[in-house]
């Protein structure tokens, strides 16, 4: 059994309505899964299951192409 304090439940298994929001058009929702630098946060940190992490990564990468999300945050860019 896992130690109680460290277990994280996948937010998409808790609330299935959130699955629909894994879409590049919902880039504000996807912001939850990237760091300030723009890196994708690993699943073991956020607790997202592998199935939805795969979906999240592809959608974040789509949003990056359209400049909705950054590839890397540039501190000089305003």
């Amino acid at each position, binding site marked *: 059994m896992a130690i109680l304090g460290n277990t994280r439940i996948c*937010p998409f298994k*808790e*609330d299935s309505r*959130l699955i629909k*929001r894994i879409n*590049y*058009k*919902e880039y*504000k*929702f996807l912001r*939850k899964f990237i760091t300030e630098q*723009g890196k994708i946060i690993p699943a073991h940190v956020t607790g997202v299951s592998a199935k939805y992490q795969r979906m999240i990564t592809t959608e974040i990468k*789509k949003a*990056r*192409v*359209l*400049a*909705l*999300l*950054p*590839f890397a945050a*540039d501190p000089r*860019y305003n």
Partner: protein
Amino acid sequence: MNHYETVYIIHPAIQEGRLNDIVSKFKDEIESHKGKFLYVENWGKKKLSYPIDKQKYGTYVMCQYSIDGGFVKALSQDLELNPNILRYLVTKIEDDDIKEGANTLDKVEENNSSKSALPKVETKVEEKVKVEEVKVEEVKEEVKVEEVKEEVKVEEVKEEVKNTSDDKKNEDIVEESSGDEDTQETGDTEKEGVK
């Protein structure tokens, strides 16, 4: 015939009149390839996350249409060669993803749903923590009640003992000590609950 969705970023210098020309040109292009134009939405002028062609802003337009897959390449070629379009993305969509409503180019207000969902998750976590705290408190209260009951029992036994012989007094002392042990155990369980 599959459904496709194209989002493209139009140069920020282009005003509304010419913007509508670009969108209608794209619409004509689809219809010339026997496609069906389903939906168009103007997301308005947005700040880009990184500069594209030295531009910091761009007007986003989202189109949904159904067309034979072979013509998608020709359509994206047109977008690629158009100097007024900074960037475009074509994705295949399912029937459920097609938006219904008026095909207008009016600027759409940004959805507040994305903002509202974030605090929901946080509040859920907070509620869970609260529930856990409440449980711990309940356990503490139960333990206290048990301790009180034990004390009462011991007192009753003592009163009985006064009327009986000395041998039984010794037994009572044993009982009292055992009662103390019980309280210690309950104390341990309380600590575990806190952990």
